């Protein structure tokens, strides 16, 4: 019986040792090596960005360089090169004082330098305009009066007066930008109401007259308010006017600098570690909380942070329902067949379309199509009176919609996979209880698939937050200080153009007039963008792990 089922066959010769492939050791090395390479590259990239980005704001010593040819220069050492066959060793100094020397940075050959020192009172000044200034304080002036003389006394007086001057300056700026801006907005709304009345009811003279009357009332009120603001700003600026610091540069030129033009000044050579840390934190504070200055290469990036986060969240809000509903239909309702397969293939291919194509589509469809239609219907007055589109141009909403479209395939594919991972036994259990299809989906399938859906959203957010190309076409601007979500009615302005960190990287890195000075800013902005994306992701992952605990954990 046995012999029938297992007929004898010639024995195969076995090799004395199991082969290398059978033991599998080389593959451990190959697989582990690949992973290690990938990790090394990612960690290296992130580490380099973090190190360069975090170091930007640390106060660097100022070196006074005496040249063999005569003359002295004061600057931060930005780079050093050792000697090679063609040229001697040299160092790159950030010499600042662009308006005097015409240079921001300059290379010096080491043999041409006779002496290097770090003078105690060498001062680095960040100005509102004109870039960095390096020099030695000599006098503090108030009008014709000399308040203080000699570096120590000047510095004492500076530290007393500068915060007051700056706070007056900021108040005046706030009045000009905020309050005056609101007034102008009101005036514009009243003016557009008149135009709108003419457009709506050309025959209704009474309504037009009422609108005109309302406009006049608003104009009178605005004029009065503007006068008060003018008086206040004139007073504030007048109080600031006389204050100035006199500096002597290393080249022995004298520069008188108005105090309200100075953002921050520090003497890196005499700062203690705590003092340096103070400057470091204050510069980070400005970076995170203030508006940009000097073509975005200095100051803060707050509008860009705000724009990035607002756009990413709105995009997630838009893409989640669309993607989930589409995937639900594909997975739960659509029958299996060539059409479903074709749709699925098309969705996967959509993920490979270059993002700039989405940008062009968004510009053509959302901005010029839908947006122009909305303008025609609801914002005609602005179009007629100011020939200024409201929704008919790039803006936060269109950018978010374009990116939602871009990330839709990611969400659909991830959701489909999450739905496929819901055990069929759960669906059957629900049907067996007499639940309908939608009841089963809503009460059983969706909660169970939620963590997987969150994974798709996380991927979509990470991808969307880092996109630049499509955004350039549909609403991201180099400078847009009016935030898309702010305190003025109606608080959310989806039509406004906005700033975005990823675009800022491109702008500061490649469009800046002072590229070398902007370079550290590029690293800092990149560092910030990566951190923000990481924060968004960590939040989403935290939510997902809570959902998973609630809906998926199964123990046996």
């Amino acid at each position, binding site marked *: 019986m046995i012999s029938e089922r297992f007929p004898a066959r010639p024995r195969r010769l076995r090799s004395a040792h199991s082969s290398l492939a059978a033991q599998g050791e080389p593959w451990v090395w190959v697989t582990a090596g690949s992973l290690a390479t990938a990790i090394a590259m990612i960690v290296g990239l992130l580490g380099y960005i973090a190190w360069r980005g975090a170091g930007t704001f640390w106060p660097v010593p100022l070196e006074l360089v005496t040249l063999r040819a005569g003359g002295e220069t004061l600057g931060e050492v930005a780079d050093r090169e050792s000697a090679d066959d063609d040229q001697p060793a040299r160092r790159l100094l950030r010499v600042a004082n662009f308006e005097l020397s015409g240079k921001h940075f300059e290379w010096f050959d080491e043999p041409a330098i006779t002496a290097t020192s770090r003078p105690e009172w060498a001062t680095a000044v960040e100005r509102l305009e004109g870039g960095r200034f390096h020099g030695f304080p000599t006098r503090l002036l108030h009008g014709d009066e000399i308040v203080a003389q000699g570096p120590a006394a000047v510095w004492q007086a500076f530290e007393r007066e500068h915060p007051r001057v700056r706070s007056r300056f900021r108040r005046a700026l706030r009045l000009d930008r905020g309050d005056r801006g609101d007034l102008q907005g009101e005036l514009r709304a009243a003016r557009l109401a008149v135009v709108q009345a003419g457009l709506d009811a050309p025959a209704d003279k009474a309504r037009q007259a009422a609108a005109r009357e309302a406009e006049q009332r608003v104009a009178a009120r605005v004029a009065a308010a503007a006068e008060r603001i003018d008086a206040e700003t004139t007073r504030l600026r007048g109080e600031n006017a006389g204050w100035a610091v006199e500096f002597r540069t290393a080249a022995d030129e004298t520069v008188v600098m108005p105090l309200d033009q100075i953002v921050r000044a520090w003497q890196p050579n005499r700062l203690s570690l705590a003092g340096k840390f103070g400057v470091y934190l204050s510069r980070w504070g400005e970076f995170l909380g203030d508006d940009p200055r000097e073509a975005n290469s200095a100051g803060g990036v707050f509008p860009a942070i705000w724009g990035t986060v607002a756009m990413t969240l709105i995009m997630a809000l838009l893409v989640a329902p669309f993607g989930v509903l589409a995937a639900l239909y594909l997975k739960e309702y659509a029958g299996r067949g060539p059409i479903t397969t074709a749709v699925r293939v098309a969705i996967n291919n959509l993920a490979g379309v270059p993002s700039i194509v989405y940008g062009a589509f968004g510009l053509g469809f959302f901005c010029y199509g839908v947006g122009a239609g909305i303008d025609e219907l609801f914002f005609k007055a602005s179009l007629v009176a100011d020939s200024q589109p409201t929704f008919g141009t790039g803006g936060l909403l269109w950018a978010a919609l374009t990116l939602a479209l871009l990330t839709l395939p990611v969400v659909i594919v991830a959701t489909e996979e999450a739905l496929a991972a819901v055990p069929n036994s759960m669906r059957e259990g629900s*049907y*067996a209880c007499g639940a309908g299809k939608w009841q089963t989906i809503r009460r059983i399938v969706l909660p169970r698939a939620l963590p997987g859906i969150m994974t798709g959203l996380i991927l979509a957010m990470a991808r969307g937050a880092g996109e630049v190309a499509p955004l350039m076409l549909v609403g991201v601007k180099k400078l847009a200080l009016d935030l898309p979500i702010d305190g003025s009615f109606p608080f959310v302005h989806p039509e406004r153009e906005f700033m975005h960190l990823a675009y800022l990287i491109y702008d500061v890195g490649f469009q800046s007039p002072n590229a070398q000075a902007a370079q550290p800013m590029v690293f800092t902005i990149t560092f910030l963008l990566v951190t923000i994306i990481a924060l968004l992701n960590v939040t989403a992952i935290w939510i997902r792990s809570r959902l998973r605990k609630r809906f*998926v954990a199964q123990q046996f």
Partner: protein
Amino acid sequence: MQARTEPHRDDPATGRPGDQRHAAPADRLLAVAAGQDVPAEVHAVVLQEVPVLEIDRFNLWYGAKQALHRITMPIPHNKVTALVGPSGCGKSTLLRSVNRLNDLVQSVRITGDMRLNGDSIYDPRMDVIDLRKRMGMVFQKPNPFPMSIYENVVYSLRIDGENSRPVLDEVCELSLRGAALWDEVKDRLHDSALGLSGGQQQRLCIARAIAAEPEVLLLDEPCSALDPIATGKVEDLIQELRGRYSVLIVTHNMQQASRTSDYTAFMYLGRLIEYGPTTDIFTKPVLRETEAYVTGRFG
């Protein structure tokens, strides 16, 4: 049994099989395997019971492959009926046909009918959702829903739109008591059901199934994923349900069938072979094939 047309060899008057023990076990099963129509041995006692569910000349195909062949059997009211047979004999398919879960499989085609308390299950006018509410089902693997124990039990009421707290509370307690689970979970009703042990989860599924007061309870190998102790508890529970619910249970476990059921049906390759009182099936079956199977000589 007005619809019965299937010929059977029993002598209805005596309820005893006729002198039919002539075929060797393999013969009849070989005939079935060869696709021949072999009439079922249905003991007369079964036909005297009041049926809750009548399966009437039921055929089912998966695509071109026929999985059930002219199944005709009454399921007695308030009794436990076990379906046994080797893997692939169509027990689970038959069970899932009762509450029309096979509708979800696209390639399924059926002929014949089933009647639940006289209402045709496969009538085109029958509302499937309404039909399923009249039945409860428990699956092989425990499948608690991703929600609290409480919500699991009252699920069928919730989807029916019942939101009155006192009603839900009462149903929840009665069902959990009915499933012998109340004492174990009464202090954590609002914890996730997924935190229960496998045996508790299966009893929870039984509580969920009886919460809707089903006319028939379908159990599809309810103990196959459980350890012996949990199996014992579920079997005790089935014993308790006896007399209060009409239970149709599929099982691979002969001891389980003999311990828990009143009637046993032996199926093979999509055909009903023998159907009678459990004691008769296990001690003095009409057919040698049945005897061979229940004593473990094949299958």
